[in-house]
């Protein structure tokens, strides 16, 4: 058991041989270690054809004509199709949600019809017997474009002089939200110092190592569509595919086996993927599409890309009186479907100032259309931005009044005994641990020693910096995220557990696995709750035909929601097993327990093994008392109802060195303390944190989708888009606080995005700390050598 978890109401899990809180290696890793996984890119079906898309080279252009005759005649080509033809099988969609009030978008087609709205939007597709032949033919699809004026610059997207991308919408404003809480003007007036800066966040993208991949297989005989897709939300995909291909949901089966990285990038369904489903239906044979890396950069959702003015008012005693932001983001020509492109901005505006007691807050965010690739949810959704702005402002405020960054946080973080409480933006906090986490972090990193080292090294012309960032994270979302807005994206999850005839446990869950450890987490909970060893539990997931209905793995919800469903289902099964044992052994269910796969009695005496119990139940029910029917399968569903989200919290720190000659930042060490409630498997949590941190570090230093003035993505390859690699990344130390949610028996909250939430904020703060002797402040990421040397006035 984890320290601090005592008395957390884990009775049913707090048993001998419990796996809860233990490091248990993930059972499903062995096949991946041997190269024996099955990713969608590995899938090959009989009669399968390969799709290659012809994509617009222009940011905005009318499609004057498409001549497919040459391409059609090329070797191996099965079909060549433009948007209009495909529109007969795939209906268009509009990416809006009713609870994001005022959000608007235009109908989007699987393949552009008449007009391409970003460089990379598909305008035609070639199907051939091999990928290479399809590529050969794609080069011969002759498309005539009439370029249209493109909206590229976010800052001027709303100017009256700027053309409107979708004239029927009236303007380029997709979404706007304002918040005004407390007494903002008075709070600024009262402040001794006001800091007012602009933050700039580069556009970046997910770069999963396995590109997006899909195989759609329409079996005209069964009248069923089987979709093999690397996706996090199979039931959502089932709904969308059925809806836009005019099928019943029962006609669609979505299979998500091994997925080569997802991070939110694969929680969406993309236009080209919809096209592939439609093409399979048209051609009556399996169609495969694996995004090429260049088209991944041009079509996988992008994220961030915010320009945000931030103001903070602080008193000399360190009291933070007020936060104010004005945020602007450009999301591409369409709001992504079905999760929309307004969620990131919406998260930014509600999360600002989240860790602090400051009651006064004013915010505005605006989401505008542009002729660039679509933007939507990617790991951390809004958190990294809100955290960078909040924590950047807090550090600047501390600097303005000459206070240590740790001290100003101690004076303003919500007290650990203040819960439950609400934030000024209406967020409901059940139980957080900002102060305990910060204390732990300060101890882990030996803050005082580091400061001394920093001072010493500065004398030698070595500029090191410390950056700290506290954060809150939205996890375990209930219906408030999508359901209330009208999207058929389940907020509940279901788990079915059964004892098979040989005494093993089979568990079907609606969450999916992309390496987070969903399978392992489920098996640990189920094994512990029933009383069997983990080897006896087999978890089935990622198959809409064979799992209960549910949301999937995203928004840091898998453990908190599906984990609870697993626990409850396992408890019911355990009860049913004990009832069966009682029937066999002629006692009362309460007289027995299950320990390590064995029914034991009140004296601890081993009575029968589960496989023997199963044998009797399945093959010799005639020997059981009359009227007794063993029910060796149980299903439970769960969704949080009390809180719309389970907030978690944490704090991170970065220790780095800036080479003031070259402008290069060297990351020396990173620390995280986070509180995700009950920890099922500390190793899995730690690795989620580390992976997320490095994605944040990538954003802080390297990753950037660079568009030119004409809307061309100029670095759409892995040589020019810089991802974080092993040699530049630091070791990352992770510590935990444990404040379980009392809403569930399990007490678990999410941990998937905490790492990404705070990492970039730390790095920015640390760079500014390192450069403080030069009087330089940089509030833009990525922090490239070019940016740093420019700020230092050296170039």
């Amino acid at each position: 058991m984890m320290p601090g978890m005592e008395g957390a109401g884990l009775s049913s899990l707090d048993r001998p041989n419990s796996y809860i809180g233990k490091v248990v290696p993930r059972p499903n890793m062995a096949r991946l270690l041997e190269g024996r996984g099955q990713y969608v890119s590995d899938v090959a079906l009989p009669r399968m054809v390969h799709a290659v898309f012809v994509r617009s080279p222009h940011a905005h252009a009318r499609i004057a004509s498409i001549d497919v005759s040459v391409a059609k005649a090329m070797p191996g080509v099965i079909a060549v199709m433009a948007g209009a033809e495909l529109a007969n099988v795939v209906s268009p969609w509009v990416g809006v949600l009713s609870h994001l009030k005022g959000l608007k978008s235009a109908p989007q087609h699987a393949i552009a019809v008449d007009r391409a709205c970003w460089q990379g939007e598909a305008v035609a597709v070639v199907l051939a017997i091999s990928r290479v032949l399809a590529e050969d033919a794609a080069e011969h699809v002759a498309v005539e474009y009439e370029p249209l004026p493109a909206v590229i610059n976010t800052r001027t997207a709303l100017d009256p002089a700027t053309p409107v991308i979708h004239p029927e919408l009236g303007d380029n404003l997709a979404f706007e939200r304002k918040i005004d809480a407390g007494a903002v003007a008075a709070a600024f007036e009262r402040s001794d110092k006001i800091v007012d800066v602009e933050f700039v966040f580069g556009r970046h993208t997910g770069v999963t190592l396995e590109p997006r991949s899909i195989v759609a297989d329409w079996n005209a005989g069964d009248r069923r569509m089987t979709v093999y897709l690397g996706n996090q939300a199979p039931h959502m995909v089932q709904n969308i595919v059925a809806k836009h291909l005019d099928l019943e949901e029962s006609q669609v089966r979505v299979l998500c086996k091994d997925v080569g990285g997802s991070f939110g990038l694969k929680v969406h369904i993309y236009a080209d993927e919809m096209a592939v489903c439609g093409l399979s239906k048209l051609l009556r044979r399996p169609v495969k599409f694996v995004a090429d890396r260049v088209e991944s950069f041009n079509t996988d959702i992008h994220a961030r890309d915010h320009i945000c003015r931030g103001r903070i008012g602080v008193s000399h005693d360190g009291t933070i009186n007020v936060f104010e932001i004005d945020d602007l983001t450009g999301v591409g020509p369409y709001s992504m479907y079905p999760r929309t492109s307004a969620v990131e901005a919406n998260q930014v505006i509600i999360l600002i100032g989240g860790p602090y007691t400051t009651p006064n807050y004013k915010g505005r965010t605006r989401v505008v259309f542009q002729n660039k690739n679509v933007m939507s949810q990617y790991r951390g959704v809004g958190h990294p931005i809100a955290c960078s702005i909040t924590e950047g402002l807090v550090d600047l405020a501390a600097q303005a009044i000459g206070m240590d960054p740790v001290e100003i946080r101690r004076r303003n973080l919500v007290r650990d005994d203040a819960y439950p409480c609400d934030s000024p933006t209406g967020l409901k906090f059940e139980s957080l641990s900002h102060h305990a986490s910060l204390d732990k972090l300060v101890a882990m990193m030996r803050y005082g020693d580091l400061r001394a080292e920093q001072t010493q090294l500065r004398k030698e012309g070595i500029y090191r910096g410390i950056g700290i960032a506290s954060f809150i994270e939205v996890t375990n979302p209930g219906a408030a995220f999508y359901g209330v807005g009208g999207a058929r994206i389940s907020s509940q999850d279901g788990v079915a557990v059964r004892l098979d005839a040989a005494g093993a446990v089979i568990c079907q869950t609606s969450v999916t696995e992309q390496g987070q450890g969903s399978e392992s987490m489920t098996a640990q909970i189920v094994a512990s709750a029933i009383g069997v060893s983990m080897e006896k539990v087999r978890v089935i997931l990622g198959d809409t035909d064979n799992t209960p209905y549910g949301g999937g793995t995203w928004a840091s919800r898998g453990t908190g929601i599906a984990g609870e469903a697993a626990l409850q289902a396992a408890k019911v099964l355990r009860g049913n097993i004990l009832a069966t044992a009682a029937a066999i052994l002629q006692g009362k269910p309460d007289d027995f327990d299950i320990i390590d796969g064995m029914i034991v009695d009140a004296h601890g005496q081993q009575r029968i093994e589960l496989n023997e119990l199963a044998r009797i139940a399945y093959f010799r029910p005639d020997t059981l008392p009359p009227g007794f029917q063993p029910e060796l399968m149980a299903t439970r569903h769960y969704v949080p109802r009390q809180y719309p989200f389970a907030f978690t919290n944490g704090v991170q720190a970065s220790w780095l060195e800036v080479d003031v000659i070259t402008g290069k930042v060297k990351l020396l060490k990173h620390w995280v303390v986070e509180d995700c409630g009950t920890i099922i498997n500390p190793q899995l949590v730690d690795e989620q944190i580390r992976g997320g941190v490095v994605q944040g570090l990538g954003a802080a230093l390297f990753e950037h989708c660079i568009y030119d003035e004409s809307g061309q993505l100029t670095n759409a390859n892995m040589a020019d888009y810089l991802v974080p690699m092993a040699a530049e990344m630091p070791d990352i130390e992770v510590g935990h606080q444990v404040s379980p949610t009392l809403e569930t028996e399990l007490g678990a909250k999410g941990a998937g995005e905490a790492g990404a939430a705070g990492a970039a904020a730390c790095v920015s703060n640390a760079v500014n700390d390192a450069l403080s002797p030069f009087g330089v402040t940089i509030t833009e990421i990525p922090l490239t050598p070019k940016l740093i040397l420019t700020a230092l006035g050296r170039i």
Partner: protein
Amino acid sequence: MKAPAFNYARASSVQEAIDLLSRHGDRAKVLSGGQSLMPALNLRLLAPEWLIDIGPIADLRRISVENGLLTIGASTRHADLQRSPDIAAHAPLLKDAIAHVAHPAIRNRGTIGGSLAHADPASELPACMVALDATVIVQGPDGERRIPAADFFVGIYETQLLPDELLVAIEVPKRTDGARHFFREYARRSGDYAMAGLAAEAEIDGDMFASLRLSFFAVDERPILAKASRHLIGRPVTEVMLAEACGALGDELAPQDDHQATIGMRHYLARQLLIACVVSLLGRSDLGARVVA
């Protein structure tokens, strides 16, 4: 993406390769390690009709030393250079430089001939050849040409090689006893092409440079043997001399702007490299701090 279709021919000798090149002219491309050619093919940036694979020509992969003269066959792989005791002894500059070229798996196939023929301006090895005053040996239908490295590189991906010529070897002259070298580059990440780099060879006489070959890369269309070195030779280097050299350097370089660095930044980085080089080679840490560059 997959490469466009091409014909493939395996050359088993230099002569056969040259015959094939003569026959197919600029419709053909030599395939050596493939570490630059294959990405370009896979991205469909090139569509040669023929690839002429020189991999099977065994005698192109060799390192030999005779009378202090180091000869490196064109097909010698980056990893061979890295591991070779002869390179460590006779051209330690190359050993230092090669660690910055790409990553282990790429160094296992990329070749020195390919690197020089490819002539990426941000590439390390071309600059090293210029610093080492190496001679590039090419063979064509009309026989052999010996081209000083400083003349071999013409522009971005452009050399003196004619379409029917094969780069066969590089000769690095004998190293004198007092020779020292310096290699440094500024790159975003380990193994990335440089934003700016400097490969230098020097002969040091007491506290003076007797000679100094400064070969800058990634700051022009090709490696530049900087004449700014003349400000530093034959006298004990002073801050003023170093500042003059830095000043003179600016006129010699014509860098390009890209995602990683602006023109001004490349000029600036080149000056920093120059200072670091002088400080390091002369062991004069007093110089660096005070020269404003």
